[in-house]
């Protein structure tokens, strides 16, 4: 019988340590089938359920493991920026904030995912493909740095019940831009005549908080002929008289509506949730706000509001009768450089963007987001005539003309938007008494300073 001596104990310990060291590569290899994924929490629980289903179905199909963290929107944004700054990154996340696809694409921080997009490229809308190709200032060219998953437009939400209370029908809504929005001024007057002391016709976010005011400005700019403020080659056209004119008309319309009392006074300092709250509180008759969250938020608890009292639609024609190109925001999945399990992340994405998978994913999430593949909106889910919102929303996003957010064309726009240069111009007119022309020139000067940092050849 062998006795355990100090020498033998030390010897055996060393042997065990050596064995463990040699065994490590095997463990590491096994861990290579696990990818880490961060994704923003949904507005409704169904969105998270849909995401978990995609991930779990992929795990079953592949045998790989995905460590999924569903994180509230604002903290996820901070985690992503911190991860990109420190270099300790997960394998996959969504573009939150949306602009990071362009800002960090500029710095060559994303893995090229062209091979993933290629598997379904013919199914994607042109806008979705454009939205995934930011400019890389290191390679001096554009490429697919994001995989489009879902999208959203900024539709018009209307309290049909209030329009009817004012003595009109939804069919009375004018078809051209200014007439359409002016209509709500008249609705306000009629409702106030009936004793509704604090009702406002127009829910314009003339604030310098969040993304809503930027969306509102750009969509109005597009309607007034200023769509080409930045073109898809990344060049800016601030010196184009047509763009300047459109910006002046936009600022004039929004600010005069506010000053004339058709917009809730507190709109000057709303955050992104405040206009939703104000709309739900029947403070205003209409709101221009991204996604169908306004409607989806009330569907479960107030089905009557969803099915009978609210109306959702796309944009009216421009004042000269042409279709208005709407901004289409795209949620992309991105793999940061430094990710340890790129292959697993790419494999998951190839699985996820199969039309039947991504289509089901968006439908399970109650359709707050739109598909980024036009064929998917032919599904009865999107064309259900009993649903007063989805068909119009789908038409606006995937049939009517759209374009990606400007920051994909040039990341300077993300800085301009974060600084709320256009909102400050509105504030200059509303609070400081500046003429719209002066306010626009001041804003264009600031925008030009920012653009100078992002020159694209």
């Amino acid at each position, binding site marked *: 019988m062998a006795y355990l001596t100090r020498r033998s104990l030390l010897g055996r310990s060393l042997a065990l340590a050596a064995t463990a060291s040699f065994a490590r590569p095997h463990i590491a290899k096994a861990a290579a089938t696990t990818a880490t994924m961060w994704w923003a929490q949904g507005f409704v629980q169904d969105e998270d359920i849909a995401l978990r289903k995609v991930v779990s179905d992929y795990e079953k199909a592949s045998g790989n493991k995905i460590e999924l963290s569903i994180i509230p929107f604002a903290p996820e944004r901070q985690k992503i920026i911190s991860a990109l700054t420190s270099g300790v990154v997960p394998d996959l996340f969504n573009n939150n904030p949306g602009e990071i696809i362009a800002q960090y694409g500029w710095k060559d921080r994303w893995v090229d995912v062209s091979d993933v997009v290629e598997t379904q490229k013919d199914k994607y809308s042109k806008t979705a493909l454009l939205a995934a190709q930011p400019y890389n200032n290191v390679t001096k060219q554009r490429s697919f740095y994001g995989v489009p998953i879902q999208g959203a437009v900024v539709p018009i939400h209307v309290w049909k019940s209030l329009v009817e209370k004012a003595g009109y029908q939804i069919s009375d809504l004018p078809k051209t831009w200014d007439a359409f929005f002016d209509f709500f001024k008249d609705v306000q007057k009629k409702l106030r005549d009936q004793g509704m002391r604090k009702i406002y016709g127009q829910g314009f976010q003339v604030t*310098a908080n969040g993304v809503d005011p930027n969306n509102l400005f750009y969509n109005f700019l597009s309607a007034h002929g200023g769509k080409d403020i930045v073109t898809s080659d990344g060049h800016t056209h601030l010196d184009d008289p047509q763009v300047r004119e459109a910006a002046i008309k936009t600022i004039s319309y929004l600010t005069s509506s506010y000053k004339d009392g058709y917009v*809730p*006074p507190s709109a*000057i300092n709303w955050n992104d949730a405040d206009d939703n709250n104000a709309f739900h509180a029947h403070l205003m008759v209409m709101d221009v706000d991204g996604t169908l969250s306004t409607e989806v938020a009330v569907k479960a608890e107030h089905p009557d509001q969803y099915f009978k009292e609210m109306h959702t639609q796309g944009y009216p024609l421009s004042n000269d009768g042409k279709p208005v190109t709407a901004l289409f925001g795209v949620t992309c999945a991105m793999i940061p450089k430094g990710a340890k399990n790129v292959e697993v992340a790419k494999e998951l994405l190839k699985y996820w963007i199969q039309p039947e998978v991504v289509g089901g994913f968006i439908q399970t999430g109650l359709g707050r987001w739109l598909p980024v593949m036009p064929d998917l909106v032919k599904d009865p889910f999107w064309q259900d005539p009993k649903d007063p919102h989805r068909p119009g929303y789908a038409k606006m996003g995937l049939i009517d003309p759209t374009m990606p957010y400007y920051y994909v064309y040039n990341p300077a726009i993300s800085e301009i938007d974060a600084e709320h240069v256009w909102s400050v111009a509105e504030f200059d007119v509303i609070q400081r008494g500046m003429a719209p022309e002066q306010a626009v020139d001041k804003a264009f000067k600031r925008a030009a300073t920012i653009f100078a940092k992002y020159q694209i050849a």
Partner: protein
Amino acid sequence: MMNSASAIDIGRPAIPWETRRHFWRGELKGSEYTWALAFLVPYIAVFLIFVAYPVVYGLWMGSDAGLYRQLFADPIYQNTAVNTVLYLALAVNVKMVLALLLSGFFMRPGRWTQALLMIFVLPWAIPALSAFISIHWMLNGEWGFLNNLLYTLFHIDGAYWLNDRWLALGSAIVSHIWKWLPFWMVILIAGRMAIPLDIRDTAKVDGATGVRSFVHITLPLIANLYLTCTLLSTIFTLGDFNTVYFVTGGGPANLTHVLATLGIRDAFDIAQPRLGVAAVMSALPLMIPLVLVLMRRLRTAEVQL
């Protein structure tokens, strides 16, 4: 060839081994020294990882002079600097003066005072986030609680509290005071309670009561505590992100940002973390003297309350 410094070294008498050993080990002998090291190493490791590294990393992130040029060129920054100074001056001083006065009130004997104190401390106890979001909604011009109350009680339309720079900044300052006043008041109550009763009694015999007692007895005895609290509160308030972010959101038109919220905006909204760090670091010229004064006060304050 030997240089002059080496020649000087050669000329010096060598420090004896025992002296050097005593310098490092003090009076510790044998295993005591090993134990001392064992206890010290975790502390040093924690200090290096959680204090030294973040500070050095922050200094490194904000070390590029170009960041400050970019920061000072940002039109929002100048307003932010003014707001920060106002925020500190008003929020800290009003809060501390009120805390001082109320600490005297709550020293009064009686059950009802104690009950009132419990209620008064509540704002400090509730989570900041939900409190400030509630205040943001309460101040809404159209459907906020405050204006609805004004209309219901007096049939007057209240102001749009968050639409004007000064009203919005004032709202943030009042919210900050409301939230943090109880904390500093409790600290000052503790300071007042530490004043020996015989001093008060003697003063009372000499006819010093009320305001005279406060001016000649209480105030001198808690002056150091008050000053230390004020300095600490200034440092805390400089880093206060929640109040402004959730009450005004930095609006209207970015006019109510303070350095803490501007730093977060630059770091995460504009996705330029180094610029965000630079925004916060730009407060260092104010912070360093404060910390130095505070350290000096703490050294001299030990002889008093």
